[in-house]
Structure formats: structure tokens, C-alpha cells
């Protein structure tokens, strides 16, 4: 029982980290996102198939398709055909 509990707890601790929003580009070409976070506006280029972590605490993203979406900071986003799919 003890072993079990310890194993469980260590698993919990190991997985206790919640990360920022991850963006994965599923397209065949580089996607350029405009990320507005806080006061700054920056462009983030994500290579085909690459994954990036953006905005840990809420931001707005303009996708290559021209759509704008707000992100809370804990989402998983996929770029498919230039537009974002939030999981």
C-alpha cells in the first residue's frame, strides 16, 4: 500500500506542472503568428511540424488565415491549413 501511495504521489508531483499554451503547426509550411501579449506585439514563426510554447498568461493570436483568437494560456492549439484549432 505504502509503495503504491508513494508511486502515485511521485507521479502526481512529476506531472504537477501545468504548462503554457502550446502551438503545433500541422501544415507543410512555416506559419507566422502575430502574438499580442501584455503590451508587446510579436511575430512568432513556427516551422512545419514544430511546436512552440506561447503566452503563459493570456494573449491574442492572429493566425495566417487572418482569424484572431484569444487564448487563456493553457490551451493546445493546432495550426491546420493556416487556421487555428483549439483543443
Amino acid at each position, binding site marked *: *500500500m505504502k*509503495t*503504491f*501511495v508513494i*508511486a*502515485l504521489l511521485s*507521479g*502526481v*508531483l*512529476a*506531472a*504537477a*506542472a*501545468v*504548462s*503554457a499554451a502550446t502551438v503545433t503547426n500541422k501544415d507543410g*509550411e*512555416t506559419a*507566422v503568428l*502575430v502574438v*499580442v501579449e*501584455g*503590451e508587446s*506585439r510579436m*511575430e512568432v*514563426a513556427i516551422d512545419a511540424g514544430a511546436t512552440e*510554447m506561447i503566452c*503563459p498568461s*493570456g*494573449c*491574442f493570436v*492572429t493566425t*495566417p*488565415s*487572418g*482569424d*484572431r*483568437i*484569444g*487564448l*487563456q494560456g493553457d490551451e493546445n492549439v493546432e495550426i491546420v*491549413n*493556416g*487556421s487555428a*484549432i*483549439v483543443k
Partner: protein
Amino acid sequence: MISHAFASFRRLSYSNRIVTTARGDSASGAWFGLLRVLKLHFVGKLLAVSVCLLSLAGAGAVVAQDAQPAQTTTQPAQTPAQAPAQSNNQPAQNGAQPAQGGAPAQNVQPAADDGKAQPAPNAQQPAGGAAQPAQNAPTPVQDAAQSNDATIAADAGQSQTAEQLANAGKELKRLRDLIAKASDDDIALAELKVQVDAVGKQIISTSIATRPRLDEIKARLTELGDPPGEGQPPEADIVTAERKRLLAERGEINALTGEAESLSVQATKLSNGITATRRALFSNTLLKNTDVSIEMFDEALSATANETKVLSRSTMSWLTFVWNYKRIPLLTAIFLSICAAMVFLVGSNKLFSPYIHHDKSDEEPSYFRRLSVAFWSTLIPTISTGAFAVSSFFFLHSFNVLRSDITPIIAIALAVTVVGFFVTTLANAVLSPWDSRWRLVRVSDRGAKVLLITIFAMALVNGLDYMFGGVSEALGSPVVLTVVKSFIASVVIGLIIIASAWIKPTLKRDEPFDAPGRPWPRIVSIGLMLTGASLIIAAASGYVGLSRFIATQIIITGAILVMMYIGFLTGKAVSRQGAFAETLAGRYLERRFKLEQVGLDQVGLMAGLGIYALVILFFIPLILLQWGFQVADIESWTYRAVTEIKIGTITISLMGIMAGVLFFVLGYIVTRWVQRWIDGNVMARSRVDAGVRNSIRTGIGYIGVGLAGLIGVSAAGIDLSNLALVAGALSLGVGFGLQNIVSNFVSGLILLVERPFKVGDWIVSGTTEGFVKRISVRATEIETFQHQSIMMPNSLLINASVGNWTHRNKLGRSEIAVTVTYASDPRRIMDLLAEIAGAHPMVLKNPSPTVGFTAFGEERMTFELRIYVADVLTGGGVRNDLRVAIYERFRDEGIGAPFPLKIEDVPIEDQTGIESHEPETVGEPKGATSAEARAAAPKKEAASAAPLDEESEEEGGKRRASSRRSNPNR
């Protein structure tokens, strides 16, 4: 920024209500925001449903479109007017998105002024020139109606979002105005920053609420496909109309999100602006340089005279007014204040008298006792004085006795009194100048008295400085007056500190307390002189604010630090081994709960940790407030510390983890409770077999703990998909190291389900034989007949053959061998034996006992009486009874009577060589092993060697040896 206890107290007293309501507003605002977001989600769901209905209804029209090549790539001109002005200043974007076959619409289209989506018709048109097909497809009326419905619902959603954003914009504007007004009020700025941040969060969540609808639109657009190109058959009218509408809506949502984006940027700018303003405010207040000159003093002198006049006039006028028109309220307020003071004084004396009073009879109080008395005798009177001050202010205020110009003066006078009382009481408790036994620091009697006077003088000067400063502020006197007062106070405090360098308080290790004392160590006296000198120099060179700040910190922060130190020492002393048992609480616990030494020690450790926690929780915020941080700052820090700790891009939520652990513990407790309930109520009443009960209980335990773990993990906000990584790593580890453990665990589960044996069974596996005591996760506990516990890994019990004497039932056969001489009649012997067996109450009638004539010996015949008993564990006792009965019966019947009495118990292999004419019981030949006999042993009270109930010890040993020989497996 330098708001000290005085200032905060004063503001607390009369602006608290405003602050609370403001905070209440923001809280309720957040709450309504949440409701709105929820409602929005709901609206989004409704939209989704209506769109689904629509697409189902219009399926016929869509099918034709599906045949077109599904080009889900970006429609270049789909984004109509993008509202925010800043969309213009993105020059890089044009170049950055070359692959999209054209820049997004916000670059193509200059920003619309009003920010609302003006579906620019040109942009809406598909790129292909022949996009407008012949519109002759029949349009079903209900389709159109539904599409209208969907549009209306969507419009409602968007207009709601727009409304929320407009509200947020207004709120931001209002906050900006407030910030502009409160640009020199640090407390208000701190509060406003919290509100601005909340608005920023709300803006983001508002825009997130539009995401589902955008996804729906995109999905539907993909379904509709691109407009037909040139030469392709024209599409239905309704499809074109729907696409147009969807594109327009998409543009509208994008415009709204753009608006949210710009609002969010504004909010962040505002929030950062507040931080910058507060920083500037702090450095301005602290590092403001004033020109110290003779004119200044002249000016101050005349201002003082003026102020004294104003003060006396306003005080007198207030008193006259109150006395003439508000006599009853004033007297009531004073009476209630005195009552409150009495209650606090008497109450704290009664409740805490052993903790705050020096026990005169105690000749040599222990260090811990001295510490705790010092700590509590400072804390409790200070708290009760503070409570008295607050309550009397409250009474005066609520009876409308105070006038707006008098209120701040009274408030600051009360606050200064409380703080001065705290510092003096603390110094008195630590130094205990009139009773050396209770002194915490080793200083001489004289030194203690002088130190106390010094500290009191510094506190008095500093307090008066703040009090007069408050009076000047309340009466609107010139700033120069406050500056001069602070200048004088700083210089006086500096001089006192320098003077204190010449006190001679220290003692040598063996000197008595009434010795004259020695000077400070050189480093201390130099430090004191330097500090005092720097205060004076700072004040003289114009940095009066800084000087005053340092003087206050030396007194107040110093006092708080001393208090903390005493608190920590108390915690340390309590958690020392055996110390807690000496305390009152320890003695009470010992009496009340009959706690042992170890238990008391553990409680003491917990108490020590608790004191540490209390000290930190109470005094750290106090010091931070001292240093000019605001309550709002501390609140937001604490909130952030418990909800999100950011390390790089990883966020850890302490609250989440604690909630997870809490849920796990709750789940665990519930599991235990359910286990006990099912076991004790349901199963015990239905007479379920003990083994089954054990299996079910253990199974419930595993399931419950597993579920509790899952719930805990979810409550901790941990994405279980993250655990997959851990599981992957674990499975690799299982492959190598944990293989045995896991195999045993799984075997244990199989044992519980399949139940080849259960708790209480008598089993034999390999060389181990005994009763099963417990089936646990890894191993099964078997207790041998000698009461030796053997932990047998579960996998062994699954893989090897296990013999179980009590598997289906406890029925067992037992044999007794009897030999007689050839002089006897075998039939008579068999009848006799059957009769004797049949007469025993514990021998089963069915299957009935049988007697076999098993062998012709050289001198004797061998018979075997085979009996069945209901419980194999009683076999030994029954055999014993039968042997006695056989012996007595044969003796009475005269069987073998002429022969000399020679009783010898021999193993069955050796019996042929031994002459005996008496009936002889022989060790169990085959079935009943010695183990069976030993099994009977636990049933007897005697803890002696097992076989003794049948044979003498020596014979038993022999028999064991023989049965070992007869059973090669053993």
C-alpha cells in the same frame, strides 16, 4: 508610498468601508463576468445546435457543393474590416505571410473607424470572377427561416460580446480617470491595479467565448467549400447566401476579437503605468530633497504658532459643539469605550493571566516559560489595546460625534498610542528591568532600565512626530511645518541612538545582574554611533523623508523583528524533546487524552511548527505593510503564490496540489468507511465467509484508493495525458526493476479473485505450512503451527501448487492404527472398534467410520480405524479420545489381558519388530500427518510443543522424524 502603521491605521479606519465596497464591486463584477461568460457558452451551444439543424435541413443543397474540390485553404479576402487602429502599424505582416496568397484582410482594408464589422461587399465576393452563378435554385421557405433564426442567434451572441467589450472599455476609461485623480495616493493605486488586472482577464475571457462560434463558422465554411470557379456549374442560391452570411459573421467576430486585443493592450499599459507611478511616488516621497535653511525654521516657527491657534480653535469649537448639541451621544460613546476597555482588560487578564503575568513565586522560571510569557504578555495586551482603540473610534464615529477635521487627529492619536504601547511593552517584556529572573537578554539591572528608557524615548519622539504630522495634514498647515517636525524628530532620535552607544549594559558570564555592567562590544557601539550620525546627516542634508523612514523602521521593524525572534525561539523551545509535556497545554493533553511521552513529543513538534507558521503569517505582512506595501499588493502576491508559481513556461499551482491531496485524503477516508460499513454491516449480517469478506474488503480498498488517486490528480488540475509520460517511464522501469513487485501485486489480485485459499485456511505450499493470516499487496502472511509468520510472495503461491486442507469444506479423514495379537478374534476387534468410533459424538455418521484389517504382522494383526470429522482441525482431539477409549475398552474386554503390560508407541515402519500384546495406537500412517496433529496444537491453551497432547515429548520427536521420512516432500 511610505505609509506606516499610523497612516494605514488612519486610512483603514475611515476609508475601509469605501475600500470594502469597492472590492465588493469588483468581486461582484467578476462574478457577473463569469455568469456572462457561462451564458455566452450556453448561447454558443445554442448556436451550434441551430447550425446543425440548419445543415441537416439544407443537406440537399450542400450535397451538390460537396462535389467541389474541398479547398479549405485560406480565402484571402474573407476577413472584412478589422477594427483596431493598430492593425495599420503592422508593416511586417505583409512580408511575413507570403504563403497565404495575399495578405490578410486587415492589411488590404484600411481600418474602419467605428470598429464594427462593416462587411465590405467587395471583400466578401469570392475571388473568382464568375462567382455569381445563375440563381435559379428553388429556395425552401423553411430553410430561409431557419437561416434567419441562426443569424439572429449569432447576432445576439456577437452583440452580447460587443456589449461586454464596450463595458470593459468604459470600465477601463473610468479606471483611467480614477488613476489620474489618485496619482499620489498609493493605497488607491494598489487597489486600482487589482481592478485593472481583473478587467484585462475579463477581456480575454470575453474573447475566448467567441471561439466556439468561430470554429463552427469555419467548419461550416469548409463544408460549403469554395465558390465555384469559372466553367464550373453554378451553385445554389442559398449556398451563396449562407457563405456570404458566414463570412460576414466571421469578419464580425474577428473585428470583435481585434477590439478585445486593443482593449487588452490598453489594460496592460494602464496596469504597467500604475506600477511606474507607484514606483515614482515611492522614490519621490523617500528621496525628496528639501532645502534645510534658517528661513525654513523661521517659517515653521510662525506656522507652528498659527497651527496651535487653529488647533485649539477647532478643538474648542468641536468640544463646545459636541457638548452643547451632542452630549448624549458623546457620553454614550465614551461610556461604551470605557466598557469595551474594561472588557478587554479584564477578559484578557482572566483568560491569559498565567501567560502574561510574572509568577512571583517562581524562583527560577525556565527559559521557555520566560519566552512564552514575554511573547504573550506583549501580544495579548497589544491586541486588546488595539481592539480598544478601534472600538472607541468606531463608537465615536458611529454616534456621529466626530467632525471631519477632528476625525484624522483622533485616529492618529489612537494609532500612535497603540504602536507606542506595543514597543514599550515589548521592551519591558524582553528587558524586564525590575525583575532580573524574567529577563530574556543578559544585561545588568541598571543597563536594562536605561535601555528601556532609551527605547521609550525613541518611540515617543517618533510617535509624536507622526501625530503632529497627522495634525498638520488634517489642519492643512504648510508642508514646511511637517518637514521641520520630522527634521527635529530625526535629529533627536539620531542623538538618542548615539547616546545609547555609551550605555553599559553587558555582563560577563558569571557576574550577577546587579553588577555595574560593561560597555557594548566595540562593533555594537560603533554601529549605533554610525546609525545615529547617518540619521542626523541625512536630515541635515535635506533628505528628511528618508531619515524619518529609517528612524521609524529602526523602531517599529526592530520591534517586530524582536517579536518574531521571540516567537521563533518559543517554537523551537516547544518542539524540543520533552518540553511540550512541561507546558500547560501538554499537561492538559496528557490528562485528557492519556497521551504517552512519544505522542506528546509529536504534538509538541506540531505545536512548534504551528507557532513558526503563525509568526510568519502574522508578522511578515506586518513588516511589509511597514515598508509601504499595500494590502492589495500582499493579497495579490499571496493569491499568485498559491495559485500559480511560474518557473519558465511551467506553472505550478500550490492550491491545486493541495486540493488534489485533500481530495485524495477524503477519498481514502471514504474508502475506509465504505470498507468498514460493507464488512461490518452488510457482510457480517449476511454471514458471508471470512475469506470472501476479506477479498471484498481488500478489493474495495484497491478500487477506492485508485479512484481517490484519480480524483486527486484531476482536482490538482493535472492533465492526465502528462501522466502518460510518467506511465511510459514507469513501464520501462517495471520491465527491469519492478517486475517482481508488479508480478506479486497482480498475483495478489488473482488470489483475491480466484481465491484458491482465503484468510484462515490451512495451506501447504512447498515447505511452508500453516494458516493464512493476511493476503496483502505483495505477499501473503502464513502463520505456521509454531506461530512463526512467513511472508510468502504472492507470485510463488500462484505459480507453485498449493495444498489447502480447508478449501471447500473442513471435512477430513483421520486414521488410527491398532495392533493386537493373533489370540484375538478379528471380527470382534473390528466390531469393537466400529462401536467405539460410533459412540464418539464428533465422529460423523455419514460417511460412517470404517475399520480395515490392514496387515498380518509377524506377531500381531494390524487394524485401521478410519473416521471422518466435520472439522479437520478437531481431528487430533478426536483421535486422542478414541485412543483412550480403545485402550480402556480392550482392557475391560480382556483383549490381551494375560500378557504383560507393555505399551510402546512406534512408528509404523518399525512396529513389526516390537513385541507388544497390548492394543497400541500408532502414529497416523498416511493421511493424517504430524502436521495435522500440530494443527490441533493452537487450539489448546498450552503453548507447548505441538505433539505433546498425544505422546510424550520424546516420542513426539521420534514421530516427527518418522513422518518426515514417510513424506519425502516434507
